[in-house]
Structure formats: structure tokens, C-alpha cells
């Protein structure tokens, strides 16, 4: 049973900010939250990781509320090349139940 829940799909337009929320009600104290991006015919690629509050890098921001039961990936000013599947992963170390990716969110950016 997947530990995370995400919307199946989202649509946006170029230049808009996109927020994708992931629910993880059973997150453990030691778990980090990691987001990956996957383009067709490629393996997933790491975007960002956080434990609490806010993390920002050159690609995205990650917002994590105090209870850590959800997280929001924020992509500023998306472009067509941001069209991809985005996966939220909670806890990425053994045992196996900590490494379930779930079905991901398919983001489509339109012109």
C-alpha cells in the first residue's frame, strides 16, 4: 500500500506557478520527503528533498507544514519542458515499505 497520495494529473499554462500536493499521513519521524521528475522514456530524476518547513533550489520549492502530513512541490513559471510525471517519495531507505513511489502526477503544460 503506497504511503503517498497525489493527484493523477494536472494541467497548466506556460508562465504559471504550479503546486502539486502530496499526502503522507503516516510519515515517520525520520522520513525525508523527496520529489522526482520523469520524462517519457527516461528514468526519474531527483528534484528536491526536505524534512520540514521550506526548501528551495534552482528548480523548485518544497513546502512542508509543521505536522509533515503533506508536502507541496512548487514549480515557478513553468514552461512546456516541465511537462512530465512528478513523484513524491517519503523515506527512501530500507526497508522496502519506505521506498514506494506511487503512481505520480502527470503535469501537462500548455502553450
Amino acid at each position, binding site marked *: 500500500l503506497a504511503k503517498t497520495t497525489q493527484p493523477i494529473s494536472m494541467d497548466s499554462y506556460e508562465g504559471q506557478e504550479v503546486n502539486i500536493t502530496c499526502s503522507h499521513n503516516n510519515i515517520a519521524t525520520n522520513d525525508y520527503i*523527496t520529489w*522526482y521528475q520523469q520524462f517519457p522514456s*527516461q*528514468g526519474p530524476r531527483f528534484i528536491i*528533498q526536505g524534512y520540514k518547513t521550506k526548501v528551495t533550489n534552482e528548480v523548485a520549492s518544497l513546502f512542508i507544514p509543521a505536522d509533515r502530513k503533506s508536502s507541496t512541490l512548487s514549480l515557478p513559471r513553468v514552461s512546456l519542458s516541465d511537462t512530465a510525471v512528478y513523484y513524491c517519495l517519503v523515506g527512501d*531507505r530500507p526497508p*522496502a515499505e519506505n521506498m514506494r*513511489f506511487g*503512481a505520480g502526477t502527470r503535469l501537462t503544460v500548455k502553450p
Partner: protein
Amino acid sequence: DVKVTQSSRYLVKRTGEKVFLECVQDMDHENMFWYRQDPGLGLRLIYFSYDVKMKEKGDIPEGYSVSREKKERFSLILESASTNQTSMYLCASSSGTGRYEQYFGPGTRLTVT
């Protein structure tokens, strides 16, 4: 840059054949993983290894086995391929310390006829 390579991008095998999928990483990572990816199901973990000669079952190990004789190499074996094993297979590796970011290979699209 971390590089994870997989032996084939595309592979076609017949039912009942023994299939070997090879994965090699060049970053001295302790952890290595095999996933399969099917439409609508996301990535599902088949097996992982956190050390040489060590292996752990993931969510869907049935019909698969693995081998890790050297730290850089992790092999997925389909003992007797079946049509329901037609899928995209992804290998990944991660460090045993730090944030455990996984680095993925390009994938092998296996078709079993």
C-alpha cells in the same frame, strides 16, 4: 556526475527464456534497486540491495531474482520469462549515507512474446 547504465534499452525475449538485465553504477554507491514501471501503476520495487551479496525483496519479487557479486553491478534475472513481465525496467543506485537520493538508469523496455 553519477552514471547508472543498463545493458540494453530494448529487449525482446520469448516466453520461458531466462533473461538477464544488467545494471552498473560508477559512484561507489552502497544501495542499488530494481523497479518495473507499467502504465498507471508508477514505479514498483522488485528487489534492492544495500551491500554486496545482500538482497531484500521489494513489493513484487515473484518471478524475479537478483545478484550482486560486485558493488557496482546489480543484475535482475527472470528465471522463466512470461508475457506479464513485459514492462519497463529501471535500475537505480543511492549512497548509503546522507539523503539517499536515487540515481536512475535510462531503463530497459522488455517485451516477452
